[in-house]
């Protein structure tokens, strides 16, 4: 047994799964999928939102702090990235990305402060302040938008080492890289002492405190890292998916969406973030195509989106009652059953 590994030890299965995923993401998908639609409407937003969900997952699923302001931090990250690239000459894209994550993290610490005193719905209201405040601030101070009066700003091209990444496939590769690195980091944090501290605070904060875990440090750390992930996700979301920057894109609806991704995907799992994001993103697409192909547009689009809302709500209630750990756990159970039967 090696004792002082920087990274947690992985089983053979973990490594095989990881290589398999990378193989699919970097070879199979780029070779087989040619249409830009798949990249720009499904894969890119899925990965961006999954990254934001990991952020939400860290603060809510791991540290147990009910926060509802992911979209605010995403907005902070997106506009920070825009301004950095705009104002700092020759800044490398990845440096700007990391810096914008850090700026979002600063907001995360600021608005995470109430978590030291309150929890549950009280904390939720406090984090709503971040959501409304950040979006308002960006909207009202012209500097953030470079005094653009139209309200919609086109995002700059992503330029890395002098090469611009503008086609859907190229942007997809950039995102895969960022998401892979950050996901690995998140998995390591979750498995390591950081994550264990979070979970101890989540499960019983008083017990955690009496064991010598600093609540202040642990909670603010969770908020900061969560906001970092959201910030980076927001920047990627704006630069690759929206291709424009507008504060309204990061309204409370997006925060709710990310919250749902985490709840449905499964609280306290990184894979849950990906599963939840895929479900929340794909289900409306599915519903629309059912509406168009089976009912041939006989159902109004607004009704379809209402049905979508009802389904999400019902699913949340059902999961809360029958499987509070969400789809990730459901998936594990299915695999377990499958193995048992063999």
């Amino acid at each position: 047994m090696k004792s002082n590994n920087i990274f947690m030890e992985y089983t053979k299965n973990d490594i095989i799964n990881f290589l398999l995923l990378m193989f699919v993401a970097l070879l199979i998908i780029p070779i087989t999928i040619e249409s830009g639609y798949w990249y720009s409407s499904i894969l890119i937003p899925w990965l961006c939102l999954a990254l934001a969900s990991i952020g939400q997952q860290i603060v809510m699923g791991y540290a147990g702090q009910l926060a509802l302001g992911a979209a605010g931090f995403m907005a902070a990250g997106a506009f920070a990235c825009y301004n950095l690239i705009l104002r700092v000459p020759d800044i490398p894209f990845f440096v700007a990305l990391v810096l914008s994550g850090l700026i979002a993290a600063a907001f995360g610490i600021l608005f995470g402060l109430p978590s030291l005193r309150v929890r549950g719905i009280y904390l939720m209201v406090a984090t709503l302040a971040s959501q409304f405040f950040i979006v308002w601030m960006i909207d009202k101070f012209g500097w953030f938008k470079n005094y653009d009066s139209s309200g919609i700003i086109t995002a700059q091209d992503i330029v890395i080492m002098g090469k611009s990444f503008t086609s859907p496939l190229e942007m997809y590769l950039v995102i895969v890289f960022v998401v892979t690195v950050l996901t690995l980091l998140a998995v390591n944090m979750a498995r390591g002492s950081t994550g264990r501290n979070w979970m101890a605070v989540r499960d019983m904060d008083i017990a955690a405190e009496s064991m010598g875990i600093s609540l202040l440090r642990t909670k603010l750390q969770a908020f900061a890292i969560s906001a970092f992930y959201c910030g980076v996700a927001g920047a990627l979301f704006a630069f690759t998916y929206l291709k424009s920057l507008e504060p309204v894109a990061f309204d409370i609806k997006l925060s709710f969406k990310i919250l749902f991704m985490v709840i449905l995907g499964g609280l306290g799992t990184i894979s849950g973030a990906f599963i939840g994001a895929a479900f929340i993103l794909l289900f409306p697409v599915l519903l629309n195509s059912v509406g168009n192909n089976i009912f041939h547009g006989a159902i109004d689009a607004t009704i379809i989106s209402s049905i979508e809302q009802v389904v999400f709500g019902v699913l949340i209630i059902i999961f809360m009652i029958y499987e509070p750990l969400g789809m990730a756990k459901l998936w594990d159970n299915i695999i377990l059953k499958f193995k048992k039967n063999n």
Partner: protein
Amino acid sequence: MTEILFFVEVVVAGLLAGTMYSLVALGFVLIYKASSTFNFAQGAMVFFAVLAFVGFMELGLPFFLAFIVTILLMGVVGFCTERLVLKPLMNQSEDTLLMATIGLGFVLEGLAQAAWGVEVRRLDLGIGDFPIQWIIDTFGLFVSALDLTAGLVAAVLILGLSILFKYTKMGLGLRAVADDPGAASSIGIPLNNIMLLVWTAAGVVALVAGMMWGARAGVQFALVDLALKALPVLIIGGFSSIPGAIVGGLIIGATEKVLEVYIGPYFGGAIEGWAPYVLAIFFLLYRPEGLFGEKIIRRV
């Protein structure tokens, strides 16, 4: 002198607008008192109730009948919620219940829109949103008739609810259930009836709040966002106190109006959107249980 008058006017308008927040918060408090559940869906219930009401009116029902039918509908909604959502989640953690009611909120919003459409409806209560002449004449103040009606309606509702809780057998039962559901049901208090009553009462409050908001801003989805502001109201007033909901609403209403009018212009306005939440944070830092709430004691 005119400046002072203007200030008074701003405060009065804020206070009266605040009663509308109070109305939303009131429904919240009712359910919290009875079942210790943070009902995040209260805002959605406001939207659902008033949309249903307008929908029934469009079907040709007279005002009063539409009102009754909507209340019955809210009773059904409450019954279903109690049976299908809260019962199965009994004894779960508060956070789980809260997330379930967020889901419930989405269900109600979706159902309302699927049934009655998404377009903005006008709701005419026969009360205009314009200043009352005799108040201008006697005090020199501009006070909107709608605001004043909302204030009066809120007062009547609160009086009614207080009497219901204080002096009726049902109310006594309710307080017993709130105190200890297990003990209450063991001495034969009908838990189900009490819950049904509470949810229906919350539905009535939601409907009234929705009618007031709807008459002002139109019956539309934005009501849900407005209703979110009931949350800071609750934090300031305390989750389990009816007077708290009222006072909290008044504080939020007056503060946000004063801030908007006097400080807003320096920052490009629209600080109403976040000011209540920041105010709530300050309350959380100094008095987390709210002005009228019971001190929260957590046992390990």
